[in-house]
C-alpha cells in the first residue's frame, strides 16, 4: 500500500521577517501545527473531486519574488483579454498586491475618518495584536472535520504581508475598495495574500477582490480573507477570479457576523488547472443575514470547486445562497453547500439553490447539498439541478433568425444573467461580462 503523501516541509518555511512580533509568532505557531499535514486524496471527503488536480511540487514552495519591474507594471495579466483594467477601477480606492505583498506605490486609497487601511508590515503593536487575533480565530483555521483537509491553513503559516482594514463604528464608505491580487507566474512558486476586515458596528463597506495573474509557470495562490462584522454592520464582498490556466488557487473566505448584521458575497470564477474556494459564514448574532451568489464557468480541462458552509449559530437569522455552474468541453465544476443549523438557532430561515448547466457530454458537474439541522423550528429549503441546453428553446430562437451560436450564447447567458446583474459594482459586471462572452465564444467554437 502506498503511504499517504505529506505536505513537503519546504512549504512551511517562510522567508520574510518584516512583520510585527505578534504576527511572526502567530505564523510560526501555525507552521508548527501544520508539520506532517497529510495531503488530500480522492478519499478525502472535502477534496474528493479536486485532489487529482492538486500538484504541489517542491519548486512551488518558495515565495514568488517581486521584481521592481513587476511592481512598476500596471498589473493587467489576466486571463481575460480586456480593455478594462485596473484603471477602470476607481483610481482613488485601489490597493495592489503582487504575490501577496502590498505595493504602496501602485496603490492609492483615501484617508477617511473612521477608515484605516494598513499593510501588515506597517502595523503598530496594538493593531498587530488585533490582526493576529483575527487570524487566530480565522474560520479556515478551525479544526477540520474528521477526514477533511484544509490546505488554506497554509496561508497562516506563510503570509508575507497582508492588509488590515478597520472601520470604526458608524463609518459608511460609499465607494468600493478594489484589491487587485496579482500573481506573477514567471517562475514556479507560491503566494499567500491575506486580507482582514474588521467592520465596526453599523458600518458599511464593500470590498472587491480581483485575482489576476501573468505568466504560465506552475504556481499556487493560497488566499485568506477574513471578515469580522459587528452589530448592524453591512458588508459586501465581490470576488472575481480570472487567473491564468497554470495557477492552482486555494482560497478561503471566513465571515463572522454579529447581531443584525448583513453580509453579501458575489463571486464570478473562471476555471483553471485547480480553483478551490471555501466560503464559510457564521451567523453568530441574532437577526444576522447573509446572501451568497456565485457563478462559475469552466472549459477545456479546467476545474473549479466551490465549498460553502453557512452556520446558523444564533436564532432568527436568514441565509440565502444561489450558485450556478456552467461546464463545457471536458471540464469539471463542483459545488458543495453545507448548511449547519445549531441547536439554539430557532426560527432560522435558510435557502440554498444550485443549478448547473452541462454544455457537452464530456463535461462533469458534481453538486452536493449538506444539511445539518439541530433546531426544531426552522425553515430550510434546498434544490440542485443539472441540465443541458433545451433543444426546443434553441430551435425557437434559431427559427427567428438567430444563428445557432448566438442562440446558445443567449440561452447560456440567461442561465446566469440574474446573478451577474445583482453584482452591485458596474466595473465588475463589465469585466465579468467580457470574460463570459469570451468564454462562450470559446466554448461554442466547434459546436
Amino acid at each position, binding site marked *: 500500500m502506498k503511504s499517504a503523501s505529506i505536505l513537503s516541509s519546504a512549504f512551511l518555511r517562510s522567508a520574510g521577517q518584516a512583520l510585527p512580533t505578534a504576527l511572526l509568532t502567530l505564523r510560526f505557531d501555525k507552521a508548527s501545527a501544520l508539520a506532517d499535514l497529510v495531503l488530500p486524496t480522492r478519499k478525502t471527503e472535502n477534496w474528493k473531486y479536486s485532489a487529482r488536480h492538486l500538484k504541489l511540487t517542491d519548486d512551488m514552495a518558495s515565495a514568488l519574488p517581486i521584481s521592481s519591474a513587476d511592481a512598476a507594471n500596471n498589473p493587467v495579466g489576466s486571463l481575460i483579454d480586456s480593455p478594462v483594467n485596473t484603471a477602470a477601477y476607481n483610481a482613488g480606492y485601489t490597493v495592489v498586491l503582487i504575490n501577496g505583498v502590498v505595493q504602496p506605490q501602485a496603490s492609492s486609497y483615501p484617508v477617511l475618518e473612521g477608515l484605516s487601511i494598513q499593510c501588515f508590515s506597517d502595523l503598530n503593536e496594538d493593531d498587530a495584536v488585533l490582526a493576529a487575533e483575527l487570524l487566530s480565530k480565522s474560520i479556515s483555521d478551525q479544526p477540520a472535520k474528521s477526514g477533511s483537509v484544509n490546505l488554506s491553513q497554509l496561508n497562516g503559516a506563510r503570509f508575507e504581508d497582508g492588509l488590515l482594514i478597520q472601520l470604526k463604528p458608524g463609518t459608511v464608505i460609499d465607494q468600493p475598495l478594489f484589491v487587485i491580487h496579482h500573481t506573477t507566474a514567471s517562475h514556479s512558486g507560491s503566494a499567500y495574500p491575506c486580507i482582514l476586515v474588521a467592520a465596526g458596528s453599523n458600518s458599511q463597506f464593500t470590498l472587491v477582490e480581483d485575482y489576476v495573474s501573468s505568466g504560465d509557470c506552475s504556481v499556487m495562490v493560497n488566499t485568506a480573507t477574513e471578515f469580522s462584522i459587528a452589530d448592524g454592520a453591512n458588508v459586501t464582498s465581490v470576488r472575481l477570479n480570472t487567473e491564468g490556466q497554470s495557477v492552482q488557487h486555494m482560497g478561503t473566505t471566513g465571515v463572522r457576523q454579529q447581531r443584525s448584521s448583513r453580509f453579501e458575497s458575489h463571486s464570478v470564477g473562471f476555471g483553471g488547472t485547480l480553483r478551490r474556494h471555501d466560503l464559510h459564514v457564521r451567523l453568530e448574532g441574532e437577526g444576522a443575514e447573509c446572501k451568497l451568489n456565485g457563478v462559475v464557468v469552466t472549459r477545456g480541462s479546467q476545474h473549479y470547486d466551490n465549498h460553502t458552509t453557512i452556520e446558523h449559530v444564533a436564532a432568527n437569522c436568514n441565509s440565502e445562497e444561489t450558485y450556478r455552474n456552467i461546464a463545457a468541453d471536458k471540464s469539471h465544476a463542483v459545488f458543495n453547500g453545507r448548511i449547519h443549523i445549531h441547536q439554539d438557532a430557532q426560527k432560522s430561515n435558510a435557502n440554498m439553490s444550485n443549478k448547473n448547466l452541462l454544455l457537452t457530454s464530456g463535461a462533469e458537474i458534481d453538486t452536493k447539498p449538506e444539511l445539518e439541522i439541530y433546531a426544531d423550528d426552522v425553515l430550510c429549503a434546498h434544490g440542485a439541478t443539472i441540465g443541458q441546453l*433545451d*433543444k*426546443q*428553446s434553441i*430551435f*425557437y*430562437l*434559431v*427559427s*427567428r*433568425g*438567430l*444563428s*445557432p451560436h*448566438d442562440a446558445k450564447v*443567449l*440561452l447560456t*447567458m*440567461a*442561465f*446566469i*444573467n*440574474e446573478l451577474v446583474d445583482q453584482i452591485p459594482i458596474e466595473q465588475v459586471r463589465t469585466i465579468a461580462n467580457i470574460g463570459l462572452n469570451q468564454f462562450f465564444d470559446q466554448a461554442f467554437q466547434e459546436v
Partner: protein
Amino acid sequence: MLNIKNLHASVEDKQILNGINLEIKAGEVHAIMGPNGSGKSTLSQVLAGNEAFEVTEGEVTLNGDNLLDLATEERAREGVFLAFQYPVEIPGVSNLQFLRTAVNAMRKHHGKDDMNAAEFMKLAKEVSKQVDLDPAFLKRGVNEGFSGGEKKRNEIMQALLLQPKLAILDETDSGLDIDALKVVADGVNALRAPDRSIIMITHYQRLLDHIVPDYVHVLSEGKIVKSGGPELALELEARGYGWLGINDAAANH
C-alpha cells in the same frame, strides 16, 4: 411563392408525412385542417427547419429556391416564420432583447444596419399595442409566466416585427377565449399583404370566421385528401371528417 412537391417526412423513424403537394401563391391564405395526428404540426416544423424531423422524399421551394437546403436560421432570414403552437419560455432573456436580436439578425442578412435600442423600443411598443399586449411584457423574460393567450399574441407580435414572406401559424387559435381570438385574428389580418403568404393550421372553423382563407385543405395520414374554398371549412364544421372517410375519433375530443 411556396411549392411543396411529394413531401415525405419522419420523426424518430416514424413516417408522418406521406406525399404532400401544395402550391401557395403570393398574397394567399391557406387553412390546413385535419384531425390530431394527421401531420399538420409536422408540416409546419419541417417547413421551419426543425432538425428533429427528417425529410425522406420530395422537395420544397420558396420563390424558386430549394428551402430544404437552407439551415433553420437561413430560412427565417429568407422570410419563413413559424408561430409556435407551444411557444417556449426562456427565463433570463428579456422579450425585448430577444426581439431586437432577431430583428437585427434579419436586418444584417438584408444588408441593413442594426436598429438601435431607442428606435427598436419605439417600434416594439407600437407593435405590442397592435396585439393588445402591455409594453411591460417587453421587459419580462421571453414568454415567462405568460398566459396561453399572451404567448399567442407574442407570436403574432413577432410576425408583425419580422414581416415574413411566409407565415405559418400553428394552432394560433388554440387555448384562446373569444376576445383573445379576435385580437389574434386582427393581428393576422394585419399581416395579410399581396407579397405575403400565410398558412393557418387549425382544428376549428371559429378562427376562419375572423380570417377568411382563400383555400382550405384537409390533411389526413400525412396527405392532403380534400381541398376547396372557405365553404369546405363550414362543411367540416357541420359534418365532421367522417364523410371524407377519415377516422375522426381524435378530433372529437
